[in-house]
């Protein structure tokens, strides 16, 4: 492929010309190279998996070809609607609730130093409890239906958001806060433009931690007790020794994790665009 555009293919040269008017051939070469870098190793690994598993007789590692051919029948005949979507729905509900709750409480606690000193040890304790142990407790109160699973996700994912928001609110530039007060910004305006904006880098960090916890809890709550869902299906396959199907579940779960982290990154890029720009400017523009 790249041989068509060979003359400009030297990577260093391609990069330098990128700033000036770039001949189309060089641009193609640059894209080609980026694509190769992006997909090269994954392709190699997949090929190795394919070849090694094709010959292996190991029951636990079925040939990749079997897994891939099992993927369609396993998931596209109704399981997407019956299992994947309910899982994602619970995840979305629990996660968004946790972020909203965490930010609201975090702003509250971060604004009053005394309240913060009062609540901090307790919050640190709740954050330190490994979230999955909340599943047996919440099962007592709420049974095993959807509500329990959403509450489990909230109960684990809220802490990183909350504590990071507290930190973020506390770290807001003092003069900035005073200026907002002197200019008599209305409380709501102040909240939106000073407090939440200023704390947003930390809030995003907390939200990122919360997302991976939320995914774990989505799966675990379904493994514990459920009659549908991604985690439930994977465990069903495992108990029935349906190995290729189990592997498709693992791969699907991996893809879900990947997709969510890509979505998160896109949201982060929008929310924190101002912050990245500021940081770059502070570093003296040395790219």
């Amino acid at each position, binding site marked *: 492929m790249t041989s068509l555009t060979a003359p400009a293919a030297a990577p260093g040269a391609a990069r330098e010309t990128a700033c000036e008017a770039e001949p189309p051939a060089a641009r193609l070469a640059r894209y080609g190279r980026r694509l190769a870098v992006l997909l090269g190793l994954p392709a190699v690994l997949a090929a190795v998996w394919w070849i090694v598993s094709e010959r292996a007789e190991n029951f636990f590692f079925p040939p990749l070809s079997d897994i891939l051919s099992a993927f369609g029948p396993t998931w596209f005949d109704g399981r997407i609607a019956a299992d994947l979507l309910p899982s994602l729905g619970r995840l979305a509900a629990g996660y968004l609730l946790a972020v909203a709750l965490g930010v609201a409480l975090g702003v509250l606690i971060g604004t009053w130093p005394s309240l913060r000193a009062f609540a901090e040890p307790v919050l640190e304790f709740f954050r330190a*409890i490994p979230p999955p142990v909340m599943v047996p407790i919440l099962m007592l*109160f709420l049974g095993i239906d959807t509500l329990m699973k959403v509450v489990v996700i909230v109960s684990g994912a809220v802490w990183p958001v909350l504590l990071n928001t507290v930190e973020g609110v506390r770290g807001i530039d003092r003069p900035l806060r005073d200026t907002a007060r002197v200019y008599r910004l209305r409380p709501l305006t102040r909240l939106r433009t000073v407090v939440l904006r200023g704390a947003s880098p930390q809030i995003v960090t907390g939200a990122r931690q919360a997302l991976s916890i939320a995914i774990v809890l989505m799966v675990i709550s379904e493994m514990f007790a459920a009659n549908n869902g991604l985690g439930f299906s994977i465990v069903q396959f495992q108990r029935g020794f349906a190995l290729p199907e189990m592997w498709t579940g693992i791969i699907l779960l991996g893809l879900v*994790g990947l997709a969510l982290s890509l979505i998160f990154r896109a949201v982060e890029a929008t929310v924190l665009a101002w912050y990245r720009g500021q940081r770059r400017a502070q570093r003296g523009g040395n790219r």
Partner: protein
Amino acid sequence: MRKALLGLGGVAVLLVLLELVPRTSLVDERYLPPFSEMAGALGDSANTGEFWQALADTLQTWGLGLVLAFVAATAAGMAIGSVSALREATASTIEFLRPIPAVALIPLAVLLYGTGMEATLILVVYSSFWQVLVQVLAGVGDIDPVARDTARSFRFRRRTRALRLAWPTTLPYAVTGFRLAASVALILTITGELIIGTPGLGRLIAVAQTSGAIAPMYAFVIVTGLLGVTVNVLARLLERRVLRWHPSVREEAAA
């Protein structure tokens, strides 16, 4: 001083609430026993060898997993990070594998190792590995270009360059990675014990729940929470101690 008192006050209020809410039947006592009963149950089980064995099992799985992951991730990170071609080639693969939740591996781990400790160890190592690797990669990437060029002009040997240049720059990041990995590893250890049934505190919780021993169940949950707090505090102390020499405590690189 005032801060510490307020904090103690917060803990005291929580404990009083935990005692009063079930006593006044605001919440069913069968679901949430008063705190005194939880404490009593904890005292009872502290007299049994079973409890201490479980605690030791949990700590062993956690520690072993954390150390394995840290060593492997630091070695891999230094190797990948110092060769830019390698770095570029592996970036997409790392970004693909990292978000895969370790719990996805539970069924596979169960099939391979049953309820053995290895089953949980896989989860712990997998999840902690990425925490450290990403930090170490960020650290190696942060080497000051001027310092690097200087080292090269002075023809530092490879080993000297690694020890005097790459390692000191990477260390703060690696330690941050260690701290993050320590708490993630604990979560996955308990998860594995709870779901898979590997011996440890998590299994005690699961057993207590299925046998309706509610007060002990809460007691064990409290122990896991205290364990988590201890891990966090120790990791922060370690961080301060290892980075004593560092001019400024660096901001955490967004993981």
